[in-house]
């Protein structure tokens, strides 16, 4: 069964069989609730649900996690529209027009636009994934240790320079993440780095406890630090998405879908940047620019389409290069590894059908999301009213279970606490979290490939710069780094203008 169409059909048959739809139904629902609750993010949701999937088969586990991811990104817009509070950072752009629409008494219509935009966006990104991931995966087979080193380096640089407002802090966060990944035994000589005779440290810091700490514990602390958020109830008009809203702004939908998918495929950028970029591009191209920020249907559509298209986009590099496109995709990748699936270039050889199964999972998740978008408005309003003092301790308990469950070591709970505290402090100091996560995830890839490359070349560093793909990736990495140096981008722009 090598025909892509057959594999796609096989993927759907696989996903839709054996009660998997039931799993999709509950997982998308949990995702939407997590996304809608301010303070709980998609990354935290995927990390916490990873624990629940340990006892499941790999395919059901992936379906559950993909559904949570898709649901959480969509769910964030509920609170963005109704409360002017983005449920996840990805939905921040949706507050700009979603909340003004709600204040005009059009909360239902805004949610309908959000549902339509999000549904089309995920579908658009999934089509791109289905079309390009298999061929890109085959191309990535040419990547050796030298190229994979640069892929990891490029990921850190691009995430560092673009994921937050301050590239310098982005790079620092990235290198901190890379350093964390070096703790424990290295592969060449089995030497335990930074272990100081401690057996637990020699085993390295588990990815999941660190991620649960950075995104779970740190978020609980952030949420509890501020004053209580005032919840409101609202009269809801019809939430049925209007086809006219999509067809009228079809150019915006297509542009946002393409931008969202592309940004998703860039390592470490993620849904929030996809939403803001799509929103900004829509505003620039719009004939109704003055409505943006005052309840523009086009603006809300652009933000929702962009952030939702980013989800399949972020999975493309996971499947083809083992490099996550966003923070939730990083956790998804860690979950794939835990379940014995080896994402990366070899996936195209070992299990090419898996890419199409992921496509099917995304489509199923998208359809279930649409279903909930139509029926799940009033119950979500009640959920939004749960006081944080009652919700956050439960989240903390789930974080503790999540950190412990993978290896049953109490040490991992301490890792979670430490990572949570450090993550909270870094967040308070305005260090972006995406490069930190990407550093932790890519650290192993970078380290292994650098050392393996040096062993293969007998200590010669020139293959890192002279092999054609290596050279191209090196130039890209240096260009991305140079772009973030203050003044360089401006200088290039002035030259081009002259």
């Amino acid at each position, binding site marked *: 069964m090598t025909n892509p169409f057959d594999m796609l059909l096989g993927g759907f048959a696989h996903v839709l069989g054996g009660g998997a739809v039931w799993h999709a139904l509950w997982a998308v629902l949990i995702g939407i609730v997590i996304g809608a609750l301010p303070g709980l993010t998609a990354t935290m949701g995927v990390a916490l649900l990873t624990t629940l999937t340990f006892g499941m088969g790999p395919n059901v586990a992936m379906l559950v996690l993909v559904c949570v991811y898709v649901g959480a990104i969509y769910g964030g817009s509920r609170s963005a529209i109704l409360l*002017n509070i*983005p449920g996840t950072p990805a939905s921040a752009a949706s507050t700009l027009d979603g909340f003004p629409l709600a204040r005009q008494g059009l909360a239902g219509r805004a949610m309908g636009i959000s549902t339509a935009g999000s549904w089309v966006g995920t579908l658009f990104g999934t089509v791109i994934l289905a079309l390009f991931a298999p061929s890109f995966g085959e191309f990535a087979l040419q990547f050796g240790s030298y190229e994979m080193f640069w892929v990891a380096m490029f990921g850190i640089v691009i995430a560092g320079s673009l994921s937050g407002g301050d590239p310098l802090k982005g790079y*620092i966060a990235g290198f901190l993440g890379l350093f964390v990944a070096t703790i424990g035994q290295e592969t060449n000589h089995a030497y335990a780095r930074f272990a100081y005779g401690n057996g637990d440290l020699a085993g390295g810091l588990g990815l999941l406890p660190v991620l649960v700490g950075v995104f779970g514990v740190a978020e609980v602390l952030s949420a*509890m*630090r501020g004053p209580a958020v005032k919840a409101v109830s609202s009269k809801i008009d019809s939430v049925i998405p209007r086809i006219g809203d999509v067809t009228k702004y079809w150019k915006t939908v297509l542009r946002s879908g393409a931008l969202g998918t592309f940004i998703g495929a860039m390592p470490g950028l993620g849904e929030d940047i996809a939403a803001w970029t799509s929103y900004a591009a829509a505003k620039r191209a719009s004939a109704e620019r003055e409505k943006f920020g005052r309840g523009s249907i086009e603006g809300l559509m652009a933000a929702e389409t962009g952030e939702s298209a980013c989800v399949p986009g972020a999975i493309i590099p996971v499947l083809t290069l083992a490099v996550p496109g966003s923070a939730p995709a990083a956790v998804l990748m860690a979950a794939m590894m835990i379940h014995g699936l080896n994402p990366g270039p070899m996936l195209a050889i070992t299990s090419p059908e898996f890419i199409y199964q992921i496509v099917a999972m995304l489509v199923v998740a998208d359809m279930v999301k649409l279903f909930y978008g139509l029926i799940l408005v009033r119950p979500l309003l009640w959920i939004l009213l749960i006081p944080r003092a*009652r919700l956050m301790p439960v989240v903390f308990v789930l974080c503790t279970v999540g950190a412990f469950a993978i290896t049953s070591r109490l040490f991992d709970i301490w890792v979670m606490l430490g990572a949570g505290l450090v993550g909270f402090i870094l967040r308070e100091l305005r260090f972006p979290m995406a490069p930190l996560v990407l550093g932790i995830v890519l650290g192993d890839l970078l380290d292994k490939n650098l050392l393996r490359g040096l062993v293969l070349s007998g200590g010669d560093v020139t293959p890192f710069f002279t092999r054609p793909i290596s050279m191209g990736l090196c130039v890209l990495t240096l260009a991305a780094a140079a772009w973030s140096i203050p003044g360089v981008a401006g200088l290039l722009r002035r030259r081009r203008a002259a």
Partner: protein
Amino acid sequence: MSEAAQEAESPFDGEKAPASPRADLVTAAVLFALGIAIVQQAWNMPRFVEQSGTGLTAPGIVPGFYGAMLSLLAGVLGLRAMRRGGWAVRAARAKATDDGRRLLTAAVLGVMYAGVLVGRVPFWMASALFVFAFTTAFEWDQGPERRLRRVVEAALIGLGTGVAVTMVFEKLFLLRLP
């Protein structure tokens, strides 16, 4: 939509305001020291030159590079903070004491639960106690009116969480709990 909604505050709003130059300067100093410490530790790691034939595969190379980069970037951060007035001595501001108290409460309760109770008492009991203490502590300030009811509700939520989490994870998903 009521006006109260306009007062609602996003938990992500704080991320938009940049950190103060003073905070950046202190951070830079800590990170610089961390970077130097990493380089020093990496330098002292064995090189395994006999086995590999090249010192370039020594275990300390990669972390040493990260440590050097951290120091370098922390240095740039420090210089930038100084240029922006990080040296300037300002009177200490007594603000956001409530924020600090809430943060401390959450952090202490979290460490007491995950670091002390978990592993020493049955998980359901530890979780029930934690959720009860957490909810009660944060709802105490809402005034004496209906306080007893809130405390009872917190106890029920705690008990429910402890039992439900234990049942779901241990019985349904067959996972070991601490």
